[in-house]
């Protein structure tokens, strides 16, 4: 298990004042982040305003040393022993760079395998397996520059698996990919976590991706954790009220008024709005039974009645608006 507590990173930046003098300025990129990542789990790291995500990932991958805080990696103190950690992690970033274009797919994997000191016969076997998994076994001996974007991205995944890492950091892995390739990648990520028991930390700008893949979410704003929990926890937390869409044959203003009176008698704070021929209801209480009962009592023919589940995207947008308007975190 990866466990960080109170992780903090302060950069000292020299700001040049004139030709001779420069002033040191401290920038607090990460203020206080605590998180956990277990094997077989996919965890999302979302940032609201550029929020120190990159710094956090770099600290977790031991590329950067935290200013304060603890980082334990399967019981090892990762800050003191980065080399032990490096053998068991890897990172996969989106984009087409970060592989050698003049080398073939096989040669790229071989080279990175050597950097991890993997024994040759084992490496050969692993490369073949990986190329098969990412569907590049037929292109293994072609130079990467002839590959399409999606193929390069798949090669990135194989590269990120070359040392058979226990934990994988995915940094915007699907950026710039088309829908079909993205879907394939998602399947692969889920397989890695569920079948191979890898612990995966994912950052992404596509909230639908995080929604689809992640079991648990950390939301960071300006270097601080503003929320952690499952997607359901987050939407419940942001949207504390239930929302229903209700429509009947011959819906008119009179029905809306009647429905509003009926529901107010149960939940004083409930709201009924008339939108595009539907009634949109918000309430604290669970009202679906009461709405159905209203329709039966009034002998109305129901076209539609369902509860609206807010998406992660809506939740994050609302949350960031809240943060903006209050100027502080809402927790």
């Amino acid at each position, binding site marked *: 298990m990866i466990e960080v507590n109170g992780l903090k990173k302060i950069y000292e930046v020299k700001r040049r004042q004139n030709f001779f003098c420069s002033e040191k300025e401290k920038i607090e990129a990460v203020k206080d982040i605590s998180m956990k990542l277990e094997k077989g789990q996919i965890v999302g790291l979302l940032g609201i305003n550029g929020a120190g995500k990159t710094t956090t990932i770099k600290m977790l991958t031991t590329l950067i040393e935290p200013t304060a805080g603890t980082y334990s990696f399967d019981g090892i103190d990762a800050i003191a022993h980065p080399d032990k950690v490096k053998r068991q992690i890897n990172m996969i970033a989106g984009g087409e760079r970060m592989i050698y274009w003049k080398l073939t797919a096989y*040669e790229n994997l071989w080279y990175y395998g*050597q950097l991890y*000191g993997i024994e040759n016969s084992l490496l050969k076997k692993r490369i073949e397996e990986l190329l098969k998994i990412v569907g590049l076994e037929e292109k293994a001996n072609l130079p990467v520059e002839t590959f399409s974007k999606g193929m390069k991205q798949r090669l990135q995944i194989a590269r990120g698996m070359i040392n058979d890492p226990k934990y994988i950091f995915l940094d915007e892995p699907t950026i710039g990919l088309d829908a079909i390739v993205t879907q394939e990648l998602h399947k692969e990520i889920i397989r890695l976590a569920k079948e191979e028991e890898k612990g995966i930390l994912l950052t992404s700008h596509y909230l639908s991706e995080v929604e689809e893949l992640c079991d648990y979410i950390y939301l960071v704003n300006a270097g601080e954790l503003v929320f952690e929990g499952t997607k359901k926890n987050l939407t419940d937390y942001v949207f504390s009220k239930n929302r229903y869409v209700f429509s009947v044959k011959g819906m008119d203003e009179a029905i809306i008024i009647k429905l509003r009176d009926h529901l107010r008698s149960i939940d004083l704070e409930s709201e009924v709005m008339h939108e595009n021929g539907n009634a949109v209801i918000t309430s604290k209480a669970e009202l679906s039974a009461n709405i159905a009962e209203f329709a039966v009592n009034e002998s109305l023919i129901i076209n539609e009645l369902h509860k609206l589940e807010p998406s992660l995207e809506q939740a994050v947008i609302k949350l960031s608006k809240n943060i903006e308007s209050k100027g502080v975190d809402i927790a």
Partner: protein
Amino acid sequence: MKYFFKVMLAESWKQHRNYFSNKLIYVSLFLWPFLSFMASYYSYKVFDIEGSVVSYISGGNIMVFLLIGYMGMSFFRSVVQSAWHFSFERQSGTLEYIYLSPASRMAVILGNALSSVFEGSVAMAVFGALIILYNKESLSINVIGLVTVIPIFLCVALLWGAFLNACFLYSRDTDFLFTVLEEPMEIFSGVKVPVSIFPGWARVISCIFPLTYALEALRQVMLNSADISSVKNVVIISLVIILVLLSATLITIHIVEKHMRKTGNVILF
């Protein structure tokens, strides 16, 4: 140790495949030194060569004197160039992955320099063949001396490459460093004009370039049939240089890694 060599060989192989797959690179390794060599040769014609103040240079062997100079020069140039190319890995993002791995940084950097030593050797062989073809008679080789000097020459070049690699890798303005290093090396390390006749201040500058000693030793054993005892000083200095370059490279790598883990920035100077 096995791991170290594994990384070193993999790196040099990768570097070779990645940059030298472009055949144009050989233009810079052969054509440029050759054109410069010709220009230098013809610029000697302006002078009364027999009037040279250096004892072992005459109208007969001046061509060979120059060829040896450019042979060494093109070897060192290939090392500098490959170091310069490696600094591009910072922009392309592959450097980060190298840092993500537990591989020894020194092995990576040495491997890189090693790849260019291979290319340099090809260039060296061509210049060597030219020397023999053109003017065998003017050579006066001490075989034992040559056999001793060549491995030292290779070692110096390799470590000079490794040191520059470390510098290029962590510097902001690599292009500038590259131009600043290339031409002075040609002038001050005695490719065209022997260092022994330099005025004092120029000789101080020439001390900085390992090529100076490498060329002096090579010329002594090839033109002056000098045995080991007479190039003893140059050999000792070369060995000292090897040690200095090695430790400078190790220290640079160490400082940079520390700096990078603190600031998140690979660039040091």
